[in-house]
């Protein structure tokens, strides 16, 4: 498969003034990775880990201190204008729409900027308006939109020229649950329809779970994990949790193989057991519980990714 992003030893340093002293910040530190066409990659890490800085280098906004990167086969800084035709970027907190013009007018200008033919412009605009449900506010000036409406318009604006690579820097920041879900559904459909490559930074693990088949975790500018989500939990040794409701109050369910008793409520009517997904299965733990007590109901909780990230960070300190 062809590479959409290839970074080699990509590094960016900032000099920040700290009172009278100057201090160096390694925002991105020796990043080497490759993203293939069609992948959906979640780029995660704590605040200040270096996600936005990486994106700025990938798109040619920021010049790397050292290392190389090619995006869509182009050198971002040198071929900036050509690259802009291949990539669509949404910076969650930065608008690319014309603030005092109606949404529709921004789309028209962008279509002209990207030299879409009249037919292509009409077809693509219609598609996006329908899928992102923009019809209700096409005539409204951008400054009057709600955040959720604006984000949908931003996404449409970034995707209007059907870019091969879509980069979203915190696209769901500040959105309510329903808006988030709609946006995710749209992105899934868009990928299915056009085979678009997706690179997404977010603090919302729901975004990663629903949208991404690969995760890059970055800590202080360094890549610390590259793989799928399940693997991330495994790396961190995170546990799944089985909660059972029993017919009668029972003693604590200790001593179940490869599981650990966490808590009991209401005299043992409800009990929680943690187990490592590597060494046993939910079915086996459940079977062992069922041998000792009669179960009315149960749930299995997957490890919380934020917790996973926290564990990985902690293990590196």
């Amino acid at each position, binding site marked *: 498969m062809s590479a959409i992003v290839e970074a080699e030893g990509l590094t960016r340093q900032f000099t920040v003034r700290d009172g009278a002293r100057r201090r160096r910040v390694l925002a991105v530190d020796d990043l080497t990775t490759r993203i293939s066409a069609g992948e959906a990659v979640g780029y995660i890490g704590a605040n200040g880990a270096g996600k936005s800085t990486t994106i700025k280098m990938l798109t040619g906004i920021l010049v790397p201190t050292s290392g190389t990167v090619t995006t869509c086969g182009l050198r971002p800084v040198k071929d900036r204008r050509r690259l*802009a*035709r291949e990539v669509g970027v949404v910076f969650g*907190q930065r608008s690319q729409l014309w603030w005092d*013009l109606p949404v529709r*007018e921004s789309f028209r200008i962008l279509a002209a900027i990207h030299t879409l033919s009249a037919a292509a412009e009409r077809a693509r605009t219609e598609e996006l308006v329908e899928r992102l449900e923009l019809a209700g506010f096409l005539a409204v000036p951008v400054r009057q939109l709600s955040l959720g409406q604006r984000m949908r318009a931003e996404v449409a604006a970034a995707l209007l020229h059907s870019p091969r690579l879509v980069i979203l820097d915190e696209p769901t920041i500040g959105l309510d649950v329903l808006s988030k879900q709609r946006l995710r559904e749209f992105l899934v459909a868009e990928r299915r329809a056009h085979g678009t490559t997706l690179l997404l930074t977010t603090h919302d693990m729901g975004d990663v779970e629903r949208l991404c088949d690969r995760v890059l975790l970055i800590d202080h500018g360094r890549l610390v994990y590259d793989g799928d989500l399940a693997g991330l939990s495994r790396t961190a040794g995170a546990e799944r949790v089985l909660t059972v409701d029993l017919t009668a109050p029972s003693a604590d369910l200790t001593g179940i193989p490869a599981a650990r008793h966490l808590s009991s409520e209401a005299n043992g009517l409800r009990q929680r057991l943690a187990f490592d997904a590597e060494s046993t299965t939910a079915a086996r733990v459940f079977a062992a519980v069922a041998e000792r007590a009669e179960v009315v109901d149960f749930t299995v909780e997957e490890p919380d990714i934020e917790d996973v990230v926290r564990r990985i960070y902690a293990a590196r300190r």
Partner: protein
Amino acid sequence: MRTTVRVYWRLLRAGFQRQSAYRLAALGGLVANTTFGLLKVAVLFATVRAAGGSLAGYDVGRMGTYVWISQAMLGSVNLHGRTDIAERIKDGRVAVDFLRPLDVQAAEITTEVGRSLFALIPRGLPMIAIGAVVGMAAPESAAAYPLGVLSVLLGIVISSATAYLVGVAGFWLVETRGLQVCYMVVSGFLAGLFVPIQLFPRWLLLVAHASPFPSMMMYPIEILSGRVGLAGALALLGAQLAWLAGVGGLGQALTRAGRRHLEVQGG
């Protein structure tokens, strides 16, 4: 080439439309322009009369033309140094400019010129109308009109391209307000906004001519008031083109260098 024209035409229209959203501001500008214009008439006419009816090639009629055309251009020629690009560099929105397949400088200047052209409607035309009533001299040759209009457009573009330089200084300076205020103080004066630069003492006239500012406002007025003949008009247009090439080329170089220096602020 055709697609390029289409893109920048869109941007020009966008600037035009954006400006049209601010009707109240246009009205305020109109009132200010008129008041200031009448004031200039009072002072400058008195000066011309005191000088015996003619001063540095200006009689009362030409001085009327000077006053009302300078007032008409005031809303469209950037003599304050404030630009959108300065704001965008400061808060990091300029990142979005670099994400477009456009020449950042050309796109910015085109949009600003679009705004300026809109301003000619609510703020420019009424000044000409007032001037026609209050009294202003016409040039002798009819050819002065198209040349004058061309010169006005060039003046607007040169001012946008020069103000752009102040804006992109923000690639190096965290705060460009000081520079902008300097530009505002110097540009209006040397562009001939307050008095025609021909009334300046000789040394100051030399300083003015060594700057792009007279080409923003003074030159078009000289052509439209008939203070210069056809040959003079062509020479002034040539000077405008030279200034445009100069500030435009400098802007290109600064944009390119600034980009390497750029540290987009904010997450």
